[in-house]
């Protein structure tokens, strides 16, 4: 019983007609989610800029507001006041619709993320598959932006987008199936409730594959060649200015927040934790995962597109399939009271697989012997 279900029952016993008792909690939930997620996106933009600054031995923005917390607001205001430039040869409809198609699915992901015990907007029983399905819509939006811009740099980036996003869906989905096997259902609430041992310990290889796949879906380093600053100027959003660019910008951080929340739910145990209230634990885990992605962004150079595809198809996908088979066998064989045995077995298999697959790592593009 989620909190909104209880609210609905309360309204029905208070005398409201059925359709109103269904509509009012839904509206309240939607407004809460949009408000809270957008605020969190703004806070995450601030947090990333400050953290990236500290990794790079400088202070981040710290002038606007106390310690710079109003800096993203200033950015948003600036973008709102800018002139909206559309290139002359651009495809007007595609150019106009692309930011919307990229941004709205990000908000829809938050509908199935459980923040606390029972605090979820819609307890779908296909929760995690819904997340993957919805986030694939953003890919089309990015390609619409790239194609509709009539800019060669954007076109190169658009081609890379489709290749990258489609190929990294597969390892992600296979890791999710592993989680679903151990839990018994795909609903996000039951996945959190089934985590007596956090799944990151129970299936380490699946967790790492999911994390890397999510990094690629988020277009963050080291897979950020869609908006590779140093190569193709700004990729698919080169020709965007003003509020449309703000939507891309917020969409990028929104999807980072959404995927951090999903990773925290699936692999780190959601809201469970000893002392503090569950919401605080959830926020701590989300911020931890996000900080880890910022740390990777600060350190690593980016991959080239054919190396990216090789990593997905030759590296992650076979490992994900083998991981799934191993977990399926263990779920059948290992009794539920001896889960710690599964932890040890999985760590051993993970080490063996990583060592085997690193033989694959060839350098020199085949032209040079290393």
């Amino acid at each position, binding site marked *: 019983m989620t909190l909104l279900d209880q609210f609905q029952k309360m309204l029905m016993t208070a005398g409201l007609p059925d359709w109103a008792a269904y509509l009012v909690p839904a509206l309240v939930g939607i407004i809460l989610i949009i408000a809270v997620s957008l605020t969190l996106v703004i806070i995450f933009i601030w947090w990333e800029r400050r953290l990236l600054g500290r990794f790079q031995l400088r202070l981040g923005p710290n002038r606007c507001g106390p310690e710079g917390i109003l800096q993203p607001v200033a950015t948003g205001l600036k973008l709102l006041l800018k002139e909206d430039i559309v290139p002359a040869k651009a495809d007007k409809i595609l150019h106009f619709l692309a930011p919307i198609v990229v941004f709205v699915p990000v908000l829809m992901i938050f509908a199935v993320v459980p923040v606390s015990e029972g605090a979820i907007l819609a307890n779908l029983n296909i929760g995690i598959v819904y997340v993957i399905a919805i986030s694939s819509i953003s890919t089309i939006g990015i390609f619409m932006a790239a194609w509709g811009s009539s800019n060669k740099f954007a076109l190169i980036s658009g081609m890379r987008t489709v290749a990258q996003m489609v190929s990294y869906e597969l390892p992600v989905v296979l890791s999710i199936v592993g989680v679903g096997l151990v839990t018994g259902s795909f609903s996000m609430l039951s996945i959190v409730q089934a985590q007596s041992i956090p799944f990151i310990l129970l299936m380490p290889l699946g967790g790492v594959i999911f994390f890397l796949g999510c990094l690629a879906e988020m277009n963050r380093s080291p897979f950020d060649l869609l908006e590779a600053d140093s190569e193709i100027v700004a990729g698919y959003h080169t020709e965007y200015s003003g509020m449309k660019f703000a939507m891309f910008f917020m969409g990028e951080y929104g999807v980072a927040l959404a995927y951090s929340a999903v990773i925290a739910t699936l692999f780190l145990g959601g809201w469970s934790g000893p002392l503090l209230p569950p919401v605080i634990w959830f926020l701590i885990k989300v911020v931890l995962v996000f900080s880890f992605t910022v740390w990777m962004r*600060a350190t690593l150079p980016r991959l080239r597109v054919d190396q990216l595809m090789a990593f997905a198809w030759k590296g992650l996908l076979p490992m994900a399939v083998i991981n799934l088979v191993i977990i399926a066998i263990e779920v059948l064989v290992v009794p539920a009271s001896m889960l710690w045995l599964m932890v040890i077995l999985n760590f051993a298999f993970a080490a063996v697989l990583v060592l085997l697959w690193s033989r694959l790592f060839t*350098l020199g593009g085949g032209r040079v012997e290393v």
Partner: protein
Amino acid sequence: MKFERYGIGIAKGMALTLKHLFRPPLTVQYPDEKLVVSKRIRGNELVWFPDRCTGCGTCTKACLQGNIILVTHRGEPNKFIVDKFELDSGRCIFCGLCVESCPYDALAMGLEYECAKYRRGETILDKDKLKLTDQHQPSAYYRPQFAAKLPKQSLLIYDKKDGGQKLNLFPLSKRKRGPGA
């Protein structure tokens, strides 16, 4: 060279970045805290000493752009009286050749580096603007006699207590506006 595969190289790099998180930042909060420049800075707002200048014109010949305009007339025998001494600091490249070449130490570089003007005509320094005052001091470039009054340079290799540049680990942002901090 033995390469380490399976992600250890990446892990080492990330460990180094994490170590930098605990080092104090390098940048200073600029308008509130300013670093001290070297004593020999070739800054803007040059200083001219009219009592030492003899109007020989060596500086005008040494300037590679021809920025200095010097107009004199003959006063007592064997002396020039300087009517006009103008230096166009908008075109100046601050190479210091004029200061080096003056045989009477009559010209010195200034200490300023934040002197933007609204009109281009204001960059031309005439005799009033080149005068030595309390706010308008010369730098010690090629003039070691002025080095005693100037503060020591803040070098990056020294810590803050030795006059260097390093900040605290978690500096709070300075909200007050005004000169110095």
